C-alpha cells in the first residue's frame, strides 16, 4: 500500500509501539516451541523418515485439499447466493448457514460414527431390509476414514469461508459488478472474473482459517484413526516421550504454513482491493429462475441439515436418555466459565487486531507488516503443543519473579500467572489472534487510502480517523472477528485442559472427560450447551452484519434492472 501521508519514524508513535509490543507478546510462546525444538533429545527423524513420515504428509495434504475445496464450494457458493440472489428461504439461510460453526468437529464425528458405523442404525436397517448378515455381504462407505474426516470437517468448517466471503460481498461495491454485467458479461462470468477476484483476500483468509483448523485437528483424526501430521506430533510427544522431537515436527508444520501464506501474498502483491466507489447501492437481489431457485434452496439447506440439524437432534436424544439433574446443575457453572473466558478473549483479541492492523496501515513498512504476520503464527501450531510453549513462558516468568523476590525480599511469590484464568486467556489470544487479525485486516484493506488522506488533511488525528472513518466502515468485520474468536474459544479444548486452574471446567473440558472414553451420552447435554451458547451470538451477529451494510435494507430490494442507478 502506498501512503503519501506516511510519517517518518522520527517520533515514537503509539500505534507502531503497540503493534510491535502485541506482536512480541503473542509470538513468545511460539518462540518457546521453536526453542524446545532446539533442545537436545532423541533424534526422531531417521525413524520417522523410514517409517511413517511420508504417510503423514500424504494424508495431511489430501485432508487439506479435500476440506479446502469442500469449504470453498460450500462457503463461497452459499455466500454468493444469499447475498446476491433471491430464492425461497434466503432470509433464513443468511444466518442459518453459520449454524454448523458452533459444532465442534469431533462431536459431529462421534455422532456420525454412531449413526453410520457397521453397528449403527443405518447399516443395521440395510442389513434387515436386504437380508445381509456380515460385512462381506455388501459395501458401505467407511465413516472412520480419510474421506469421513474430510466430510466431517467440511461440514463444520465451511461457515468460516461463508462468513468472510459474505462480509466481502456485502462490503463490495455493486457498481463494478453491474459495470461488468452492462458490458455484456453474464452473471456467471461476472462472478468468476469480477466479484470473486475482488473478494479474494477475504476468501483466502476464510480458507486459511479452515486449513489451520484442519491441520491442527486432533480430536477428529484421532477418533477416525486418520494418521495426519498432527497425530504424528502427539505420538512422538506422548508415546516416545520426546517433546523436543514433537516441537521439531510442529516447527516444520509452521514453516510449511508460512510458505503457503507468503506464497499467496506474493502472488497478489501487485493487486489492490479497495472499493473505488463510496456509493453503496442496495444489493441487486437477482431473482433465480424456476428450477434454479429450488436447487439453490436445496444447496443451502443440505449443509445446515447435515452439519447442524441432524447432529443436534441426535445429541438431544442422547441428552434426554442420559438426563441427570445433578450433572445439569454442574453444566450451568461450566457454561458460565466458557462464556466468560470466550467473551474476554474475543474482546481483547479484536482490540489488539484493530491496533495492529491500523498501526501497520498508517505507519506501513516491513517491520509492522511482519509484526502482523508474526502475531498470527500461533494458529499454525497444534493447541496442545502451543500450550506447552505458554507453560514454558509463564513458568519461566513466574519463577524469575519468584527468584528475584526470594533474593531481595526474602519471600516467595510462587506462581503468579501459571495455572490461572489469565494463563488460559493468554493461551486463547496467542492461538486465536490470527482469526481477528485476518478478519479486520481483510476489511480494512478495502477502505481506500484516499479516505485516510482526506480525513487527515482535514485535521483529524490517527485515532479520530480510525474512530470516525474506519470503524464505521469495517464494523461488520469487527463483529465477525469477535464472533470467530468467541466461538473458537467456546470449542477450545487442549489449551484449556493444560493451562487451567484447579477445579476449573469449561463446557469443552467437561465434554472431553466423557467423550475421550466414547461416552457421548453423558456428555451430550454439555455438547449441546456449547452449540447453544455458540449459536445465539452467531445469529445475532449475522443479523447485525447484514444490517451494517449501508443501503442493505431489511427486505432485499426488488430486482433492479441491471445497469440502472438505484
Amino acid at each position, binding site marked *: 500500500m502506498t501512503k503519501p501521508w506516511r510519517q517518518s519514524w522520527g517520533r515514537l508513535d503509539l500505534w507502531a509501539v503497540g503493534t510491535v509490543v502485541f506482536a512480541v507478546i503473542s509470538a513468545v510462546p511460539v518462540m518457546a516451541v521453536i526453542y524446545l525444538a532446539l533442545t537436545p533429545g532423541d533424534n526422531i527423524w531417521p525413524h520417522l523418515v523410514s*517409517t511413517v513420515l511420508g504417510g503423514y504428509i500424504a494424508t495431511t495434504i489430501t485432508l487439506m485439499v479435500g476440506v479446502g475445496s469442500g469449504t470453498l464450494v460450500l462457503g463461497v457458493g452459499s455466500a454468493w447466493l444469499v447475498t446476491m440472489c433471491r430464492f425461497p428461504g434466503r432470509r433464513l439461510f443468511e444466518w442459518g448457514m453459520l449454524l454448523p460453526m458452533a459444532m465442534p468437529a469431533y462431536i459431529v464425528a462421534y455422532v456420525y460414527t454412531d449413526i453410520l458405523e457397521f453397528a449403527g442404525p443405518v447399516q443395521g436397517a440395510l442389513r434387515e431390509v436386504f437380508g445381509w448378515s456380515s460385512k462381506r455381504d455388501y459395501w458401505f462407505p467407511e465413516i472412520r476414514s480419510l474421506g469421513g474426516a474430510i466430510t466431517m470437517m467440511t461440514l463444520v468448517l465451511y461457515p468460516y469461508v461463508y462468513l468472510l466471503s459474505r462480509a466481502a460481498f456485502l462490503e463490495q461495491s455493486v457498481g463494478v459488478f453491474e459495470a461488468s454485467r452492462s458490458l455484456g458479461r453474464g452473471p456467471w462470468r461476472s462472478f468468476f472474473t469480477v466479484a470473486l477476484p475482488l473478494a479474494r483476500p477475504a476468501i483466502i483468509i476464510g480458507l486459511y482459517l479452515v486449513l489451520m483448523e484442519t491441520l491442527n485437528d486432533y480430536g477428529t483424526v484421532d477418533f477416525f484413526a486418520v494418521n495426519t501430521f498432527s497425530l504424528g506430533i502427539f505420538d512422538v510427544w506422548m508415546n*516416545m516421550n520426546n517433546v523436543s522431537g514433537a516441537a521439531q515436527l510442529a516447527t516444520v508444520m509452521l514453516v510449511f504454513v508460512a510458505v503457503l501464506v507468503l506464497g499467496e501474498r506474493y502472488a497478489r502483491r501487485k493487486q489492490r482491493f479497495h472499493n473505488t466507489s463510496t456509493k453503496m447501492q442496495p444489493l441487486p437481489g437477482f431473482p433465480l429462475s424456476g428450477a434454479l431457485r429450488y436447487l439453490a434452496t436445496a444447496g443451502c439447506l443440505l449443509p445446515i441439515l447435515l452439519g447442524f440439524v441432524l447432529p443436534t437432534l441426535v445429541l438431544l436424544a442422547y441428552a434426554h436418555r442420559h438426563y441427570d439433574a445433578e450433572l445439569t446443575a454442574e453444566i450451568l457453572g461450566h457454561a458460565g466459565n466458557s462464556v466468560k473466558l470466550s467473551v474476554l478473549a474475543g474482546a481483547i483479541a479484536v482490540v489488539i487486531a484493530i491496533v495492529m492492523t491500523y498501526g501497520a496501515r498508517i505507519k506501513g513498512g516491513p517491520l509492522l507488516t511482519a509484526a502482523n504476520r508474526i502475531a498470527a503464527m500461533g494458529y499454525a501450531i497444534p493447541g496442545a503443543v502451543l500450550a506447552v510453549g505458554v507453560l514454558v513462558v509463564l513458568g*519461566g516468568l513466574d519463577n524469575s519473579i519468584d527468584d528475584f523476590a526470594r533474593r531481595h525480599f526474602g519471600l516467595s511469590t510462587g506462581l503468579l500467572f501459571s495455572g490461572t*484464568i489469565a494463563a488460559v486467556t493468554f493461551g486463547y489470544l496467542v492461538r486465536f489472534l490470527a482469526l481477528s487479525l485476518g478478519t479486520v485486516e481483510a476489511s480494512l484493506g478495502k477502505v481506500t487510502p484516499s479516505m485516510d488522506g482526506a480525513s487527515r488533511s482535514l485535521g483529524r488525528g490517527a485515532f479520530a480517523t480510525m474512530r470516525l472513518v474506519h470503524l464505521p466502515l469495517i464494523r461488520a468485520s469487527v463483529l465477525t472477528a469477535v464472533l470467530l474468536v468467541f466461538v473458537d474459544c467456546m470449542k477450545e479444548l487442549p489449551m484449556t485442559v*493444560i493451562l487451567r486452574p484447579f*477445579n476449573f471446567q469449561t463446557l469443552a*473440558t467437561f465434554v472431553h472427560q466423557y467423550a475421550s472414553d*466414547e461416552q457421548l*451420552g453423558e456428555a451430550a447435554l454439555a455438547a449441546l450447551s456449547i452449540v447453544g451458547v455458540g449459536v445465539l451470538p452467531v445469529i445475532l451477529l449475522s443479523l447485525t452484519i447484514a444490517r451494517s451494510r449501508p443501503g442493505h435494507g431489511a427486505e432485499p430490494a426488488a430486482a433492479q434492472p441491471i445497469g440502472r442507478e438505484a
Partner: protein
Amino acid sequence: MKCKNSLVPLTRAALIGAALVTAAAAQAQAQAGEVNLYSSRQPFLMKPLLEAFTDETGIKVNMVYMKKGMLERLKSEGRNSPADLILASDIGNLHNHDKAGLLQPIESAILSANIPAQYRHPSGNWFGLTARARIIYASKTRVKPGEVTTYEDLADPKMKGRVCIRSGKHVYNISLLASIVVAKGTEGAAAWAKGLKANLARKPQGNDRAQVKAVFQGECDVAVGNTYYMGKMATNEKDPVQKKWAQSVNIIFPNQQDRGTHVNISGAAVTTAAKNKANAVQLIEFLSGDAAQKIYAEANFEYPVKAGVALHPMVASWGTFKADKAYLSRIANQRIVASKLVDQVSFNN
C-alpha cells in the same frame, strides 16, 4: 466453584508488589488442610474416592484433569508447582515423570504393607493403586474353546481377518507390546506385531469397548481390551445394548501356561515440589486402604492391589489368573521401542 489459583486478575498481576502479598497469603492458606492433584484419571472416576477422603480427613482435594502436558506443566512450574501429587492411568506415565526427576521417594509403612512390591517403585517414587489385565474377548459362538489361549495366538495365521484392536499407539497397547518386547526381545515383538497386523479384521480404531461391540456385530471374532470394560458394559443400565455386547463374548486370560497375562496399573506419586507432602502421602495411603480399594473394585471393576479386598462379584466370577510378573519398570522402559515397532509394521494403516 473455588479456584485457588484463578484469583489473580490480569491487572493486579501487573503490580508485583500487590501480587507478592496475594501469593504469600494464598500460600499460607494452602498449608491449612488442602492437597493439590494433577490427574490423568477422569474426574468422574475419582470423585467418589476423593469425596470419601475429604469426609474422613477434612482435607480438601483440588484437581486438574489432563491427559497431555502434565509432565511439561510440572517441569515449567518447577519448585513453585502447586501440585502435591499426580494420578496416572498407566505405568508409562508414572515412569516418564520419574525419569524426568519430578517425583520424590516416599517411605510409608502403610503403603509398603498395602501394595505388593511388584506394583510399586523400589524407592517409593510411585505406587500402583489398581491393576487391570489386558485380556482377549472371544465370541461365544465363533471361537471354539481352546482355539485362542495366548497373545501369540492372535498373531497366528489361523486368526486371519478375525481380530479387532484399538490403535496400536494407545498407551494400553504400547504397554502390552512393551511387555512382549521384554518377554521375547525386539525381533520377537516385531514378528508378533506384524502377525497381529496381518490378522486384523479392520484398521485399528475406537476404544476397547468398541472392539467388543464389533465382536457382537460380527465384524470380528476376538478383540483385545482391559478387564474393567467387561464390567462396565455388562452393568450398563443407561445404555442397555452394551449388556448384549458383553453377553456375546467370553473372557480369556492369555498365557496362563507360561509368563501370564499382561497387567498394567493406575497409580499415584508425590511430586518433588509438593508443599503439602504429608497430605499427599495421606491421600495415597487412603487410596490404597480397604475403603478406597473397595470403591475402585466396585465402581470401576478394577483389581485392587491390596490383598484381601473383595473383588466385584462379577470380576470374581471371571476367576483368578496368573499375571505377567515382569517388573513394570522394565516394561515401561521398552515403551519407546514398542512405539517405533508400531510404526515399522505400519500397524495403524
